[in-house]
């Protein structure tokens, strides 16, 4: 039965509608229940993935793919959504955000990302993209009294809409060249189309989705949006919509552009060069930052560069390197943002100085932060190390040793700015900074993610095997 396979999407839709109704019906002082409903919705949707395990089929008139790649992304997005509920709980209460609106937007953004990652059809990719984008523009501007939040929302909206329009123009060209919106059908027909037009369509798609993931030279909105948006929203943006756009790039490019024998080599070289520039630019600029949110924004540009290494190294290696890195990045980046939110919840601006003496104020949080930073740099035994190792091996296998070397050098550069935060936490005393009083939700998120970073590192073999099994399906 088709409907059992899209159970998570159905549950999320119902949760979103229930949240809207709760927002309308509940008295202002009872809205505390709203995040709990959202969290339960995400957990129920995760449970709803059960019937999809091990399936490889197309449902809803060939519009929706249930395969192991889509299972991977749906699990990832639902888990990210659940963690976003945990990390935003106390923050939303403290900043008096419009809770009802915030959580239903979070649910619908997640739904849009799931649609985007589990389809071969350009129309559905576009609808998923817009459902998630339009909801997230609003989320960036949730702090109505904070001008930076409004500025972040405006910049995100303008750049995001231009990006959607550019990607859409590329989609219309693909449709014109092939007469179909199904990427799988389009692959064969693209090989008969004039190469110049195929390249044009590909460039539009790459520019559009490149803007969405924030790779250089399409990164300029990332720092402002990430700094201005409410921190839990930034945490969510940095992993969720990024991974969804990456999923769309994987589906479209791996299937229809990298696969073209005549053009494949040129695309791969271009993506490799963009990857190298993204990581170097992101890491070097991050060194100059004093605001931790802005620093992590530049760091996220660098991490997009790392992921592009995995795409450039296709097809000799499979997708497992990219997918593993996406999962690793989601865990460790959400973790580090959870620590930033924890510090902000003590009433401090997210400057590096706010982390002074964190090791004495909340030793467990400082240790967790160190684990996340070690993972982001790529130090064993964390998941970050194993994921980055896979990317490096992929680059070497694809005869792009230079790219692997740049990846290694960049990991070394990133130590510089990550260490600056760790240093003030452990080596400076806590004089003049408030003691840490953490709500149980944010503490639970920090601990869960820190344990996840270590445990996933130990079981990285299993993750690799799981992601590798999806490759053949995506490539079919």
């Amino acid at each position, binding site marked *: 039965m088709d409907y059992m396979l899209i159970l998570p999407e159905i549950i999320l839709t119902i949760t979103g509608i229930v949240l809207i109704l709760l927002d309308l019906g509940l008295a202002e002082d009872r809205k505390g229940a709203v995040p709990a409903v959202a969290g339960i919705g995400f957990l129920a949707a995760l449970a709803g993935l059960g019937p999809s395990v091990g399936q490889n089929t197309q449902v809803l008139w060939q519009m929706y793919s249930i395969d192991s790649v889509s299972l991977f992304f749906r699990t990832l997005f639902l888990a990210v959504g659940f963690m976003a509920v945990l990390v935003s709980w106390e923050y939303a209460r403290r900043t008096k955000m419009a809770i009802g609106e915030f959580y239903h937007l979070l649910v619908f953004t997640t739904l849009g990302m799931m649609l985007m990652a589990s389809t071969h059809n350009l129309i559905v990719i576009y609808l998923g993209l817009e459902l998630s984008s339009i909801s997230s523009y609003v989320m960036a501007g949730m702090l109505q009294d904070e001008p930076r939040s409004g500025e972040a929302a405006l910049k995100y909206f303008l750049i995001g809409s231009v990006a959607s329009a550019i990607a859409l*123009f590329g989609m219309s060209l693909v449709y014109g060249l092939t007469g179909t919106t199904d990427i799988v059908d389009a692959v064969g027909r693209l090989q008969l189309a004039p190469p110049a037009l195929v390249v044009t369509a590909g460039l539009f798609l790459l520019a559009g989705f490149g803007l969405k993931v924030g790779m250089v030279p399409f990164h300029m909105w990332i720092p402002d949006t990430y700094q201005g948006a409410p921190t839990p929203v930034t945490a969510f943006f940095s992993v969720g919509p990024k991974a969804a756009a990456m999923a769309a790039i994987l589906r479209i490019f791996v299937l229809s552009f990298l696969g073209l024998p005549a053009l494949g080599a040129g695309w791969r070289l271009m993506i490799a060069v963009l990857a190298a520039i993204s990581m170097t630019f992101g890491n070097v600029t991050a060194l100059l930052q004093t605001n931790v949110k802005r620093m992590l924004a530049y760091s996220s540009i660098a991490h997009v560069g790392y992921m592009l290494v995995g795409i450039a190294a296709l097809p000799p290696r499979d997708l497992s390197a990219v997918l593993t890195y996406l999962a690793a990045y989601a865990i460790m980046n959400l973790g580090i943002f959870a620590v930033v939110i924890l510090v902000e919840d003590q009433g401090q601006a997210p400057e590096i100085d706010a982390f002074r003496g964190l090791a004495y104020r909340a030793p467990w949080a400082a240790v967790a932060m160190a684990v996340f930073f070690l993972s982001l740099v790529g130090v064993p035994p964390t998941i970050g190390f194993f994921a980055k190792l896979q990317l490096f091996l992929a680059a070497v296998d694809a005869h792009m040793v230079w790219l692997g070397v740049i990846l290694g050098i960049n990991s070394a550069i990133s130590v510089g700015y990550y260490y600056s935060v760790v240093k003030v936490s452990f080596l400076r005393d806590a004089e003049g900074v408030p003691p840490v009083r953490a709500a149980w939700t944010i503490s639970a998120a920090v601990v869960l993610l820190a344990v996840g970073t270590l445990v996933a590192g130990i079981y990285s073999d299993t993750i690799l095997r799981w992601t590798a099994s999806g490759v053949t399906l995506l490539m079919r």
Partner: protein
Amino acid sequence: MVSLHGYLVLAAFLFGLGLYGALARTNAIRILMAIELMLNAVNINLVAFAQYLTPGLVTGAVFAVFVITVAAAEAAVGLAIVLLVARQRGVIEVDKINLMKW
């Protein structure tokens, strides 16, 4: 009858115009209008392709209907955000909205 070529040239021109407007203008409302222009260029493309390349199949036209719907939603949210910024700052010129700079 106009050839497919004509429609594609028109769409490319409109798209270029919209992209130029989005990049060169500083008033947020004007940028919003330029974005609408880009989306409508895509619609011309889609409908022209559907009519000339796959007569009888309406995939392209259906795609265009979805694009129109989404464009309306996007404009609604966009105007709300512009309104928020206008209320907070009193300006909607994007080059004057620069609290954050590195």
